[in-house]
């Protein structure tokens, strides 16, 4: 399956955010976009998901895919309850019968069953983030995009969700895109780490991690080496 970006350009006014970017997402796995704040990561995935237009270039293989997208902000309907917010993305295509159980499943995954009937304004930041995660997972699109999905989450919840997403990937395969500033998250979850710089967004380095994702990785020497590579990038 070809999933490629060729000489992509995108500017906001005079500012070139993406200028002649080439990237390859064809290999199945969790692809991590790792780069400093403001370098253009969100802009890139927004273009891939078809949320914003691009100026020129070629994007192959993305246009007929459906996306589950955990946005950088929660983007919940303020006038709908937690339950209704998740149902909102399901009711266009799913059958009536199984929607309730899907919603309940994912709410229990993010530990929010008791808050089913709450409105977003009555939730904390991290709780809203969890609703947004539950919504994306419940939708079960072809490609999962996660833009800093674990920000504001407590350690245990973060671990649960990381494990869940890794497990979900093993069941589903295909392409997952994870944006993060956290080297640990990247090293724990990713099969491919694209180290980015910008703007304009450029690919600095690509790290391929052969080990299966998960906690077990942290002991491996190679991972320590990758960590140093990533952290060098940060302090640079």
């Amino acid at each position: 399956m070809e999933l490629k970006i060729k000489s992509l350009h995108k500017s906001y006014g005079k500012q070139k955010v993406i200028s002649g970017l080439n990237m390859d997402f064809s290999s199945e796995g969790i692809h991590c976009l790792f780069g400093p704040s403001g370098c253009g990561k969100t802009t890139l995935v927004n273009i891939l998901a078809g949320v914003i237009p691009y100026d020129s270039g070629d994007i192959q293989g993305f246009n007929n895919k459906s996306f589950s997208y955990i946005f950088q902000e929660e983007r919940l309907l303020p006038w709908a309850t937690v339950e209704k917010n998740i149902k909102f993305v399901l009711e266009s295509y799913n059958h009536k019968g199984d929607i309730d159980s899907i919603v309940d499943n994912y709410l229990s995954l993010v530990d929010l069953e008791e808050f089913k009937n709450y409105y977003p304004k009555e939730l904390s930041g991290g709780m809203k983030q969890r609703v947004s995660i539950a919504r994306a997972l419940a939708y079960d699109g072809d490609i999962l995009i996660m833009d800093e999905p674990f920000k504001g989450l407590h350690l245990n919840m973060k671990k649960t969700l990381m494990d869940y997403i890794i497990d979900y990937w093993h069941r589903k395969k295909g392409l997952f895109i994870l944006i993060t500033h956290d080297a640990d998250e990247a090293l724990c979850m990713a099969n491919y780490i694209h180290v980015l710089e910008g703007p304009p967004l450029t690919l600095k380095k690509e790290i391929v991690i052969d080990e299966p994702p998960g906690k077990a990785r942290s002991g491996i020497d190679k991972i320590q080496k990758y960590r140093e590579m990533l952290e060098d990038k940060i302090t640079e």
Partner: protein
Amino acid sequence: MKASTIKDKKSLNKILVFIFWISIWQLTHIVVGRDIYVPSPLQVITTLGQMIFSNVFWRTIAYSIFRVVAGLSISILLGLIVGIISALNDYVYDIINPFMTILKSTPVLSFIIIALIWFTSSNVPIFICFLMCFPIIWTNVVAGVRNVDHKLIEMSKVYRIKKLIILRRIYLPTIVPYLLAACITCLGLGWKVSVAAEVLSHPQNAIGSHLYSAKVYLDSSMLFAWTFVVIILSMLFEGIFKRFTTKRNMKEYSKINS
């Protein structure tokens, strides 16, 4: 305890304000000294009392209410539909907008006179009420749609939500506060313009027709009494509307807490 004494104080204040203005009225009546210019409060209340016990009064009110409700309902329905369409489509907006500007700045009387030629007398007030309220609803609905949160629209595009569901779950809730504000304005305006239209078209059962005969017979206390009825009806409408809309909000809230 404290809350209830504050409430008592408030209603006492209201009664005092009421008595104050009635006294001003009575004083004006005495100073002017002629019933035909300013009838006394007592005269008006007596006239009102006599009116209330006739069948004609209630039938008149019923028909006038029907006209206002009809005019308002048509404006709200069309204002909502046309408003949403014109906010979403620039061409439609460009076509409709000058028409609305003209509607807003044309004197009501010009419309009433042409409507007298076009319609039967009973329908003129409905049409006029519609012409006056429709632009207000339309303007607010357009403003509401334009204020929609684009991040939510993007989100629903990513999740490939059907257009109708986007309309129902994102656009409508965004519009509601704008629409409610427009409705409150229109409730007051609707009564004023449809009674004015009734005065000129005098349908068989209409408050405006009674105002017209009060003018013909120079019966000022009749004029005041019917005017009073219009004010009460208009306030009643607004009160019921506000109660109804806040009750809905309350329901949403109680759902949260349960």
